[in-house]
């Protein structure tokens, strides 16, 4: 069975998956994607998973994880606000906080790193991304509510490679990436990945006095090691990141002196209000954020019965994150530490029955300390490729919230090769760390009110999907349709409606749910030309101030059309993606002195057009393209930009793009041992 898995996984990419197939880390993420030309692959595995492989990552600039979802219809990426450059994703219409982020199948980017995680994973470092919708396996814990995103980085045990990448765009952003591995002998290998980006120009396209995107300087380095023995496999990595962002009214040379600064430390923030400083009318409003993050992990697997794939694995990971933020006169500093350990045992009894079980321990030292030991068991029943049923149960105990149970179930039924039906049901939980995860909301004069005794978030997710492959002559048309329903039993409500001059973090009282429908069609229309069209409709409601209302800043629909043309031998590649994002509700506005509302209560839909041309050579390629070519942007994303120290200032009422068109050019060098 391992041999079959190895062959299947070897068929899709140049990387030998031997290291990870031993983990059988995710039966949900089995891959069988044809080598060239699958648009974005749906996996043949148990879960409803989109696989974004290296070919897909070449279709756009994909400088970082956030930009890698441009051609993916399921994940929405937006700026969280108009000031920090932090990006957020939405899956199934719900906030990215409900998506569990994993790197190498280990939970990552939690707490203060969460709002910036999309900018912390450089595109050229990634080997692939798996986006799983709905409840995922209990192996990775209880934190996924709407889904899971797993990023696999380039591995040292892969075929020897060396690559480099340089990118430059019309906003003046420069990025450089380097990556290489080395096989020391037939067991040991190592790899080094490096990334540097700098944006040192201040653009103010809408003349509101605020820079459209903050100046950024970021450096990252990752060193990995792997030992691939016959019965024992080992992987380890360390990663370091340093980043500085500066935004706001930075056209002015220096910040004012003697400002009345309010300091909110992770341990002490509670119900403090912020007052605009007096007597500093002319002082520029500056946003200054520094992040420093160090991570390490190790995976050990011992296989003691190859025939049954019986193995025992130990995963250890830890991270340190230091963040200093300054929003005008509000400051938030935090030091976060996390340690995670997971011991798993897996085996196949025979071709039909397999078991995975394990214990885990997670410790977070965030604004409060939380320690979670947990235990899980997962059983899978499989009849060839036709039928798979997986049930998992998990029990965790939190020193803050007590014990809780996470059940998850997945079903896959393929009556024939062309039809696959999937269903999933599962529960998910989340602990909130409000200031760490939402501190970008301080880029406003809103009073920040955080209730004491915030509940652990708890939700059920139900999903159904169907995939159909229709042969048309020599080609095929792939169709899929899905429906997801998420309902919250407990939720952190971010209430910006009840008081437009405050943001109130409180426990949900009432209903909160999300219905998502999505349909997709993809086909190679003629030689080298593939077209994908998707439509998604979301209905997300929550109870605000006692009334069930549409969730604000959530698009009601999304249409995506993406095309790729790679004629002849594929030396030239043309990609174009058009997104049509539906409108939605804004948080309730207030009335200005002249009787007009502070902003429109609804925002209209908007389009996003991206295109790219790539020319491939044997060991290098050159690419050029444009993002947001129609230049569509939210004209005045910053409310009261002329008076940032006043009580109306708000840079968080962002529903659309905050910059105009961006054009870019880049070169990729790639060498791989033959």
């Amino acid at each position, binding site marked *: 069975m391992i041999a079959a898995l190895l062959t299947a996984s070897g*068929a899709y990419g140049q990387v030998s998956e031997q290291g990870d197939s031993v983990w059988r880390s995710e039966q949900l993420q089995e891959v069988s994607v044809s080598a*060239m030309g699958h648009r974005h692959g749906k996996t043949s595995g148990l879960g409803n998973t989109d696989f974004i492989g290296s070919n897909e990552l070449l279709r756009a600039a994909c400088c970082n994880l956030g930009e890698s979802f441009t051609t993916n219809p399921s994940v929405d990426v937006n700026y969280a606000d108009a000031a920090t450059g932090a990006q957020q994703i939405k899956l199934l219409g719900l906030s990215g906080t409900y998506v569990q982020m994993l790197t190498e199948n280990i939970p990552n980017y939690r707490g203060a790193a969460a709002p910036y995680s999309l900018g912390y994973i450089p595109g050229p470092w990634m080997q692939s991304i798996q986006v799983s919708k709905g409840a995922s396996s209990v192996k990775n814990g209880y934190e996924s509510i709407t889904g899971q995103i797993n990023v696999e980085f380039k591995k040292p045990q892969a075929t020897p490679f060396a690559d480099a990448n340089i990118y430059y765009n019309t906003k003046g952003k420069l990025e450089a990436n380097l990556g290489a591995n080395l096989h020391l002998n037939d067991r040991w290998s190592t790899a080094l990945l490096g990334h540097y980006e700098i944006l040192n120009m201040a653009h103010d396209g809408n003349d509101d006095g605020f820079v459209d995107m903050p100046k950024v300087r970021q450096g990252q380095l990752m060193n990995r090691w792997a030992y691939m023995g016959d019965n024992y496999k080992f992987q380890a990595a360390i990663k370091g990141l340093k980043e500085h962002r500066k935004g706001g009214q930075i056209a002015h040379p220096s910040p004012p002196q003697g400002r009345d600064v309010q300091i909110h430390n992770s341990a002490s923030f509670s119900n403090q209000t912020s007052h605009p400083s007096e007597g500093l009318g002319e002082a520029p409003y500056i946003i200054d954020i520094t992040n420093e993050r160090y991570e390490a992990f190790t995976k050990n697997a011992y296989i003691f019965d190859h025939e049954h794939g019986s193995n025992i694995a130990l995963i250890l990971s830890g991270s340190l994150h230091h963040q200093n933020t300054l929003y005008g006169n509000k400051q938030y500093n935090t030091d976060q530490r996390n340690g995670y350990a997971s011991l798993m045992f897996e085996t196949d009894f025979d071709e039909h029955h397999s078991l995975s079980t394990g214990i885990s321990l997670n410790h977070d030292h965030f604004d409060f300390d939380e320690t979670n030991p947990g235990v899980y068991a997962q059983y899978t029943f499989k009849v060839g490729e036709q039928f798979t049923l997986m049930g998992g149960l998990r029990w965790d105990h939190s020193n803050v919230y007590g014990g809780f149970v996470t059940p998850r179930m997945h079903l896959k039924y393929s009556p024939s090769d062309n039809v696959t039906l999937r269903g999933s049901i599962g529960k998910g939980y989340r602990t909130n760390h409000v200031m760490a995860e939402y501190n970008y909301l301080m880029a406003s004069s809103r009073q920040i009110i955080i209730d004491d005794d915030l509940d652990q978030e708890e939700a059920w997710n139900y999903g159904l999907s169907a995939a159909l492959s229709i042969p048309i002559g020599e080609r095929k048309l792939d169709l899929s349709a899905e429906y997801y329903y998420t309902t919250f039993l407990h939720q952190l409500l971010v209430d910006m409606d009840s008081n437009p001059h405050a943001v109130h973090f409180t426990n949900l009282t009432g209903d909160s749910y999300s219905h998502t429908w999505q349909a997709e069609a993809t086909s190679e229309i003629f030689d080298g030309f593939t077209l994908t069209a998707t439509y998604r409709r979301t209905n997300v409601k929550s109870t605000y101030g006692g009334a069930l209302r549409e969730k604000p800043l959530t698009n009601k629909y999304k249409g995506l059309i993406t095309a790729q043309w790679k004629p002849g*031998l594929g030396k030239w590649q043309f990609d174009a993606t058009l997104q049509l994002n539906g409108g939605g509700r804004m948080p309730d506005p207030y009335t200005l002195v002249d009787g007009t509302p502070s902003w429109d209560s609804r925002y209209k839909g908007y389009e996003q057009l991206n295109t790219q041309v790539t020319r491939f050579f044997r060991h290098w390629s050159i690419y050029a393209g444009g993002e947001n070519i129609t230049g569509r942007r939210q004209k005045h994303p910053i409310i009261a930009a002329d008076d940032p120290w006043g009580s109306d200032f708000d840079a968080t009422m962002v529903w659309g793009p905050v910059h105009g068109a961006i054009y870019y050019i880049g070169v990729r060098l790639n060498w791989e041992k033959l």
Partner: protein
Amino acid sequence: MVRTKALFIALAFVSVCFAKDIKTVVLTTTPQMHCANCEKKIKENIRFEKGIKSIKTNLNDKTVTIEYDADKTTIPAIIEGFKKIKYEAKEVKTNKTKQDK
């Protein structure tokens, strides 16, 4: 009428001069292609050889059919291209098909 004829002859002359001499060769490889990964490796590398117009691989009879511009390259040059990616390539003669295991 004479002008049209002259134009036609000129066009024919020019097209003969610029006509590409597209030839086809069928090759087998050692090691043989046994999976999609091998096909991919061959397609992705051989396409950068000079004069290659199209590459078709067949896993069933383990052959690679290449269309090439005879003005820009030759069969020995193509075989050299395969050597670069660690494959020995042999031309399949039209009268007999190689029966490799």
